[in-house]
């Protein structure tokens, strides 16, 4: 799961303009977050999932696995939300705890689940089809502070360097029985953490050398890949979002009526 970002290099949409994917995802997230209807949120979740699996050609198992991560948090919290203090129209009652699930609170928590899922799926659409470097490029174009973007892009690289280091240290300790007893485990873990600190300090010094030797002048400038806008995709995004807005209005009107 940690190498999550590799999928964006294999999808069918990797040559699509990142801005299109970004606008689709973020735009739809904004609209979808106004939804107040289960049906609408479910439809969004369902269509976006279809898009991810059949359009972006992300494997279903991969997608389901990635969905399972937020579900670990979502499902328990929705279950908790479904409970309220006992009232007359309850479906399930736990009298000894003075808790019950009413029809309304049940609907509410299911709605919350699907609304979250619809937004999560839209976010996944972006993450699974667009590499982090590309997303950061968009932020650059949107005039986000350069410093933040540079920190983010360095962090992205360093996470993997440190992860590799930690992994190697762990394996080397483990292969010499460093985690055999509880006492040893604590000791080894201590070494691992202190080592990781000094290694990260040393590596950052060394990497700075490598930047300097390539004439680093305090700013990261990269050549950015050229992408072509596609009229088809833009039309699709517009139609999708218009339908979403219409759905939003209709569902709201119905609620009012």
């Amino acid at each position, binding site marked *: 799961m940690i*190498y999550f*970002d*590799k999928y964006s*290099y294999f999808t069918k949409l*990797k040559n699509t303009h990142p801005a299109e994917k970004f606008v689709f995802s973020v735009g739809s997230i904004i609209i979808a977050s106004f939804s107040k209807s289960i049906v609408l949120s479910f439809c969004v979740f369902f269509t976006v999932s279809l898009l991810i699996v059949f359009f972006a050609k992300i494997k279903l198992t991969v997608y389901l696995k990635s969905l399972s991560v937020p579900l670990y948090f979502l499902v328990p919290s929705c279950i908790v939300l479904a409970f309220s203090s006992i009232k007359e129209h309850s479906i399930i009652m736990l009298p000894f705890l003075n808790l019950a699930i009413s029809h309304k609170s049940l609907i509410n928590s299911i709605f919350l689940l699907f609304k979250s899922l619809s937004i999560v799926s839209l976010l996944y659409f972006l993450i699974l089809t667009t*590499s*982090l*470097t590309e997303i950061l490029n968009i932020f650059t174009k949107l005039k986000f502070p350069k410093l933040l973007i540079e920190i983010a*892009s*360095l962090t*992205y*690289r360093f996470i*993997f*360097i440190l992860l*590799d280091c930690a992994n190697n240290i762990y394996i080397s300790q483990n292969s010499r029985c460093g985690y055999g007893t509880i006492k040893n485990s604590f000791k080894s873990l201590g070494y691992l953490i202190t080592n990781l600190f000094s290694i990260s300090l040393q*590596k950052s010094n*060394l*990497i700075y*050398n*490598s*930047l*300097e*030797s*390539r*004439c*680093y*002048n305090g700013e*990261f*400038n*990269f*050549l950015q*890949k050229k992408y072509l806008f596609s009229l088809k995709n833009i039309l699709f995004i517009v139609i999708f979002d218009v339908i979403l807005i219409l759905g939003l209005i209709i569902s709201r009107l119905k609620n009012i009526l």
Partner: protein
Amino acid sequence: MNCNNIIELKNISFQYPDEAFSLENISLQIKKGEKIVILGENGAGKSTLLLLLNGILKPQHGDLLFYDKKLNFSQKELFQLRKTVQLVFQDPEIQIFSGSVYEEVSFGPMNLSLPLDVVKNRVEKSLQTLDILHLKDKPVHLLSFGQKKLVCFASILAMQSEIVIFDEPTASLDQRHIDLVLNFMEYLSTNEKTIVITTHDIDFAYSFATKIVLIKDGKIIKTGSPQEIFFDNDILQKINIKKPLILEIFEKLNKGDIINNAPKNKEELFKIIEELL
């Protein structure tokens, strides 16, 4: 005095802040088109010497002459020096800082303030030269060690510098990648680049170098042509270096020390053997 040195180190001394290791009284000349191989044991100070050559480390004593002018280590001078001298680090893990191959390779040329289309050409050409164009969109952390090494080469090649320095380019590579690297060296030298390499591959050093520098415990013990170095048995023993296989065979065949007839590579050795038969 020779006037075609690109870089000359004059009695340079350098000590790390923790004073555990120092390079002492180093003098070295690098001329255009030379192929210099630096040999020495682990920890002899080879990598340290290379870092001095492009101004990453600043010597405490002695002068670095750049095109016969003393370098004062101002930002502007360092920029010019690094534009001319590029260094491929020993460990690709600490050279690559970007998450994507394409960005990594474009970083150096972008710093030279070249027009964008020139940068693009250079990046794509160097990726092509090293045969890794297909990796250009891959995230760096998914590459193998050898592939990372090739990315480092590409990012240095894209700088199109006069001098290219390699710190153990063939270490921990498989035969195919070693051949790739060696071909790449030949490619550079036919393009009239000046090359400085550290390596532990004696046979390669012998057939590739025009000049060999022996270094031990932070001092240069001897500088000379491959023949001068590898027929000097005392020195070889002192620095724990084996004789190249080609020379060993040649010596056995000849039972003499006709230095000037020594074969440079396998093909020349085969010719000599055929004549003897």
